[in-house]
């Protein structure tokens, strides 16, 4: 194995206009690994993203691949670019969002490297901690690969400062247009609501909400608290709310200051997505529900009485 100078490449998640907040957490993980930090911005008409990325504290340089083939971050094209750029680095990181989880394993396989998914701690440049079994166990793993391909669980790393850096921006080419897939459409979520992954307070509903209309009670409470609304898998599977609200092992993993679980029993896979919250409140009429085992404050009550009362008290 050649003796590489330690260097991190962080793949920037963005919408061709702004740097995604999740990337800032991956930059912090790279800082903890040590060595230079370069960012890769791949997209279409995305120079504003590169300019913003260059201001992130601690960044050495930004590589900008501005090309129509990267416009929608299709995995085949973006992975081929990552492969071209990764050769000079010891660590390639992305956030463990659906963006990073989609493209990073593809790039890793093309490089014949393992991927270390969803790290929550950097022990040393080759040793990381990652949750397994829905977070019921933490594995410490050591990588023997010369390029470590990593996705970063955002809640365990503070975001890097968006100001203070003065990195250079270098336009690069590379990657291929595989011509295998094309983007058709994106169903736009309700943008006037608070973002679930970065909200300080989250009010979540489960099967106990009984239907989608009843979520209006939670939206009312959330509006007063400046909170986002989330949901358990049971609520999403039942069609009460759309998939992007799902909190859990295979949905979003969040750690707000306050998490209010309403009518949620607390299945293992749901706890995996919210048990790092600073303060957890559970409102459920079943005193035996497992959610009470992780709740700081439990209220055994009929949610259809308790939630309107809570709304009125705020």
């Amino acid at each position, binding site marked *: 194995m050649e003796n590489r100078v330690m260097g991190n490449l962080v793949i920037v998640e963005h919408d061709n206009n702004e740097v995604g907040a999740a990337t800032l957490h991956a930059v912090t993980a790279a800082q903890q690994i040590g060595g230079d930090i370069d960012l890769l911005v791949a997209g279409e008409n995305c120079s504003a993203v590169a300019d913003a990325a260059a201001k992130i504290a601690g960044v050495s340089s930004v590589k900008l691949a501005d090309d129509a083939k990267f416009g929608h971050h299709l*995995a085949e094209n973006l992975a081929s670019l990552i492969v071209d750029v990764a050769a000079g680095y010891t660590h390639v990181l992305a956030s463990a969002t*659906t*963006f990073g*989880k*989609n*493209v990073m*394993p*593809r790039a*890793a*396989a093309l490089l014949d490297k*393992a991927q*270390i*998914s969803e790290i929550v701690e950097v022990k040393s440049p080759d*040793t990381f901690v990652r*949750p397994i*079994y*829905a977070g*019921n*166990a*933490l*594995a*410490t*793993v050591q*990588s023997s*690969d010369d390029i470590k391909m990593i996705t970063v669980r955002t809640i365990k790393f503070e975001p890097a400062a968006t100001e203070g850096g003065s990195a250079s921006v270098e336009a690069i080419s590379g990657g291929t247009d595989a011509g*295998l*897939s*094309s*983007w*058709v*459409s*994106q*169903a*736009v*979520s309700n943008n006037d609501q608070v973002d679930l*992954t970065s909200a300080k*307070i989250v009010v979540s509903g489960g099967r106990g909400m009984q239907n989608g209309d009843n979520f209006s009670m939670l939206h009312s409470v959330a509006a007063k*608290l400046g909170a986002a609304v989330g949901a358990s898998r049971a609520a*999403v*599977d039942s069609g009460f709310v759309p*998939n*992007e609200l799902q909190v859990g092992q*295979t949905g*979003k993993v969040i750690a707000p200051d*306050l998490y209010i679980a309403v009518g949620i029993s607390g299945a*293992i*896979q749901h706890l995996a997505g919210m048990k790092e919250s600073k*303060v*957890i*409140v559970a409102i459920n009429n079943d005193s035996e529900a497992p959610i*009470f085992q992780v*709740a*700081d*404050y*439990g*209220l055994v009550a009929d949610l259809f009485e308790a939630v309107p*009362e*809570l709304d009125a*008290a*705020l």
Partner: protein
Amino acid sequence: MKILVCVKRVLDPQVKARVKADESGVDLANAKMTMNPFCENALEEALRLREAGVVEEIIVASVGGGKTEETLRHGLAMGADRAIQVVTEDALEPLGIAKVLKQIAEQEGVGMVIAGKQAIDDDSNQTAQMLSALLGWSQATYCSEIKIEGDMATVTREVDAGLETIQVKMPAVMSADLRLNEPRYVKLPDVMKAKRKPMDKIELDSLGLDTANRLTTLKVEEPEGRAAGVIVNSVSELVEKLRNEAKVI
């Protein structure tokens, strides 16, 4: 079209994982095991594609030791036509699994591979993407809807922002999300029928692949538990505690 469905045997999702006292891993001795839930979604979709006339033959495959056969038999009972077990007692990483599955997909000449989006034991969420890369095929992960027309598929994907629709050229590797379908229940006659369906066993070593693991697990430990909370008696008490004790509102 032949379709390959990749499945994994995992700890039953209703069972809480317990870490071994020597911190070498999770204790699976005598634990209830099952087919990974996302793999059931993948297999269910293959069955529906066969019912719709898009797929002629469904091969269900898994990599693992002795009891992996039980999981494959479950797949046959759900309705797969035949099974392939690549036999090894080693726990391969997703990259090694993807190399094995690539060889199976090519040997069988399948036109599509579908897998679960992640296994609920190691939560890696890698194998489908890696397999797609190694085959050089189109990739469609986290599918909640799949429509195949000729050599194109239109796929709706569950992403953080909501739902994304993409078109992919076939052949493709896809991974199933939970809302793709509701897996069917297996009936007893299907279990009996599954016993007579073909089950090929291939020794991993006979494939001549480099499936060496790149990661060494140094330690597996339990996360810190949360301190016990309190039960409040009223909404007003709850609000008072959130304001004055926890100071979060």
